[in-house]
């Protein structure tokens, strides 16, 4: 992708002047800008479509029609929102720490766009190919916690501080299960680069590593503050938490960052576990969009149905639930990898079977431990207070 654009630019440059001292620097800079421009606009387009799609889908889940006033079927709603937010007044609270207050939205949005630089959109259609891209993704996702802290601390608002402390505790405790759940895949493919993982085998990794997929999905739900882990801006308690004091385009950036993070999480999940752009007939880019849309549908579906956890249950689930699951997964996969080394014919099927048999039941055992006592129905009818057991005095004494 990069060389392709580099040659085209070189061809055009040679028409004007043949040799130019800084030619190589200029061309790399220009093609880099073009690729970055393309990727960012693709993601922004995706965000606008996701905002519209989510609001209408949530509406349809609740038997109402969702926004349909601007443009046919409400397609221009998100653009109308964006334009409105740009012109809204930009308030900075009095005792706010101005610089950190302005820095916070950028800190949230920029890392999300960086993730897309590593994701392959098709065969050879990628922005950058680093050989440790999985590590790169994990490193970049951890910056968003910092931005939430900056936003809350700068806006000097007690409820925002509540939401920031909650979100830091949650993000840190969920980074470890997310990181460890990928170890299984790395063991099998012996390479950290997303390109190798994608074209390693035609069978998607979700079948080979079921538990790792579940843990990664739940972890990424917590990373992007989505139900059932949306504790940072729990409407009923904190009413938009750290975004309380933001208005105008700063709030717009937060809103955009939140939805872009959802697309990022969905695309990372589909590249790693659903095999990214490879699929039978259609070109790579279509397969990636179909998988991302499917994962986004699942995220929105969960958001429309499940209530949210409490902070202690969220941390409980992370440390006592998902963490152990990833360890079990690593142990089983490493044994499977040793038993069936590289040369085997249908090695993947054996590993997949090993995972399904040994690791999948653990999912229910550990979640069972987390759950509270089930509601036993027999104590419904037990009446504890003796209503009407005694007679008033004037009836008792018979007078």
């Amino acid at each position, binding site marked *: 992708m990069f060389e392709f654009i580099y040659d085209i630019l070189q061809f055009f440059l040679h028409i004007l002047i043949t040799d130019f001292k800084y030619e190589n620097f200029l061309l790399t800079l220009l093609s880099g800008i073009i690729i970055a421009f393309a990727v960012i606009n693709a993601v922004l387009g995706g965000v606008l479509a996701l905002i519209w799609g989510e609001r209408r889908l949530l509406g349809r889940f609740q038997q109402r029609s969702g926004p349909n006033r601007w443009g046919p079927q409400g397609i221009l709603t998100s653009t109308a929102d964006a334009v409105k937010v740009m012109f809204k007044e930009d308030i900075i609270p009095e005792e706010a720490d101005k610089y950190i207050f302005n820095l916070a939205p950028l800190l949230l949005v920029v890392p999300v766009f960086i993730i897309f630089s590593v994701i392959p959109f098709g065969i050879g259609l990628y922005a950058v190919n680093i050989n440790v891209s999985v590590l790169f993704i994990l490193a970049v996702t951890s910056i968003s916690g910092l931005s939430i802290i900056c936003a809350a601390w700068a806006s000097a608002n007690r409820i925002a501080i509540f939401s920031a402390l909650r979100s830091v505790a949650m993000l840190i405790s969920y980074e470890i299960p997310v990181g460890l759940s990928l170890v299984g895949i790395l063991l099998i493919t012996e390479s950290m680069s997303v390109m190798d993982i994608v074209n390693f085998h035609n069978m998607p990794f979700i079948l080979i590593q079921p538990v790792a997929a579940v843990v990664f999905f739940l972890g990424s739900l917590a990373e992007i503050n989505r139900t059932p882990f949306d504790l940072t801006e729990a409407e009923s308690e904190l009413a938009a938490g750290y975004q309380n004091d933001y208005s105008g385009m700063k709030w717009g950036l937060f809103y955009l960052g939140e939805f872009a993070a959802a697309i990022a999480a969905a695309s990372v999940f589909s590249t790693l576990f659903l095999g990214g752009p490879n699929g039978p007939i259609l070109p790579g880019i279509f397969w990636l969009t179909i998988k991302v849309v499917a994962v986004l549908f699942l995220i929105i579906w969960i958001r429309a149905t499940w209530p949210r956890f409490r902070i202690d249950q969220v941390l409980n689930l992370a440390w006592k639930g998902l963490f152990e699951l990833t360890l079990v997964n690593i142990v089983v996969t490493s044994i499977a990898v040793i038993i069936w080394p590289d040369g085997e014919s249908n090695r993947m099927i054996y590993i997949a079977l090993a995972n399904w048999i040994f690791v999948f039941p653990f999912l229910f055992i550990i979640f069972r431990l987390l759950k509270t006592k089930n509601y036993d129905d027999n104590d419904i009818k037990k009446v504890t*207070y*003796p*209503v*009407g*057991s*005694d*007679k*008033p*005095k*004037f*009836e*008792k*004494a018979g*007078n």
Partner: protein
Amino acid sequence: MKNWNGITLAKEINSHLEKSVLDSNDNDVYVDPEKIYQVMKFLKETSGFSFDLLSSITAVDYYDHFEVVYHLKSLITLSKATIKAKVGYGRQDEPKIQSVYSLWKGADFQEREIYDLMGIKFEDHPNMKRILLWDGFPGHPLRKDFVTNDQSIVEDSKK
């Protein structure tokens, strides 16, 4: 749900606590305000009455005196009774009565509301202050002699 006849109830109370009942007719009992706490304690604890649910406390302003009305219900004997106490004669002194908060916690908000709107103070109530109106509100609105013209309230509360 049987209704206690005021006269029989008055006889019962009088037999245990002398001279605590001033007057009674067939559906309510007038109790001497000083002895209200003992009467209520008796009604709550003894087995034949066991009025464990204090349904409601209200106050009525009859120009020359106030009347605090207690409606009691007993879940155990499925019976209900009304106890009244006349307080604050002649309107000069601040009307005062003993609070029943220590017997029934349910009396907390209702007594504060009576103090707030009617002006009857309940002694040894945990936090005896206004519940509905703001603290600087002049006077007690539910009294019959409370004249309402909007301007006076605004100015008085500014003072």
